């Protein structure tokens, strides 16, 4: 078959498609977040003292951390999945979330006595955290992966890992409102571990499923 013949077939296959990839990705992140929120509200729900907790800086910081992770990772992801667009600022922008975490940990160590560090770090929900964040990530990760198959990531594994960061960021935001461990020491240890796990799954899935 000559290349000219292939071109004929491609031209016949042309359809009007004004939907751009950015919209597909944004739609996938939104639907993943909606599904995860629905699952969360039906099965878990926010902690009983939610209204009271809103006065606590530690409690609020968990959302600052998780939301900054979602935004920075999503911005990076949309660049990784489009050919010929450089990541630019966002190649490093995702470090904002861990940087905020380091500052919060330093502040926590400064204002709390050393004897309290261990119980604050271990908390009471470590295992729950390590289970629920990955579980709540499943729907967002699946939605984002499906969207990424429409994209064209030059590095499929990396795109999959960053998809894992977005998905676990959504999960961490939800889980943060349920969990009663608010110390940055707890967040830095167990949230990071759970998020890293989801990113690893994203990497493995991505390097297989996102080739094009």
């Amino acid at each position, binding site marked *: 078959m000559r290349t000219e*013949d292939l*071109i004929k077939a491609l031209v016949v296959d042309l359809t009007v498609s004004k939907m751009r990839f950015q919209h597909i990705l944004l739609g996938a992140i939104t639907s993943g977040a909606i599904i995860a929120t629905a699952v969360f509200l039906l099965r878990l729900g926010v902690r009983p003292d939610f209204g009271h907790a809103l006065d606590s800086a530690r409690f609020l910081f968990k959302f600052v951390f998780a939301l900054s992770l979602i935004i920075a990772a999503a911005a990076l992801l949309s660049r990784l999945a489009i050919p*010929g667009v450089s990541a630019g600022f966002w190649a490093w922008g995702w470090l904002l979330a861990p940087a905020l975490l380091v500052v919060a940990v330093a502040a926590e160590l400064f204002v709390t006595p050393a004897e309290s560090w261990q119980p604050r770090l271990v908390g009471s929900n470590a295992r729950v955290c390590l289970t629920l964040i990955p579980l709540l990530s499943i729907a967002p990760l699946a939605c984002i992966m499906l969207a990424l198959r429409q994209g064209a990531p030059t590095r499929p594994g990396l795109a999959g890992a960053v998809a894992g960061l977005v998905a676990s960021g959504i999960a961490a935001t939800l889980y943060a409102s349920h969990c009663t461990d608010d110390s940055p020491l707890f967040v830095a240890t167990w949230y990071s571990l759970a998020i890293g796990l989801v990113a690893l799954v994203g990497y493995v899935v991505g390097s297989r499923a996102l080739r094009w």
Partner: protein
Amino acid sequence: MGLRGAEEEWALLMRAAINGDSSAYSLFLASLTPALRTVARRNCARIGLDSCEAEDVVQEVLLAIHLKRHTWDVDRPIGPWIMTIARNKLIDARRRRGNRPTLPIDDLADILTAEGTDDTMDRQDLDHLVGKLGERQQDLVRSLSMEGHSIQETAKRLNMSEGAVRVALHRAIKALAALYRGGDQ
């Protein structure tokens, strides 16, 4: 045609194609192909691939450009988008042959300044891949490409609805891209 000129023309044609203008799309692919061919040949020679494999790379790049055209942001220049796709496919081709993945691949300027070569080779590879499609899909692809029939004629001949022909063609094109990639469809 100057460096900017070619890129701007391609962008213009592709924007029209996205809005459904198939003659613009045909022009776009026809104008892009000779440039892609030169780049593919030059790079294939440099990275130790047989120069006749270049035409396979050209066809694979065209398939990818077609299937991923929604990833081009219409407000951005089209050159880097095309170049990245072409480079990816060259890297894939090299990897499939088990060659060292360290040699650099020529850059964008090469696509845009390339003197187009219009001579086209009949490629066994694509025929071989088309042969792996189902019988009906093969019939349909040949009818719409080599035989140059319209959707209406093909639908009538194969006793299918026009919608079904369109769907089957799109599936066949996706299947061909997957076969090129190494058969994970």
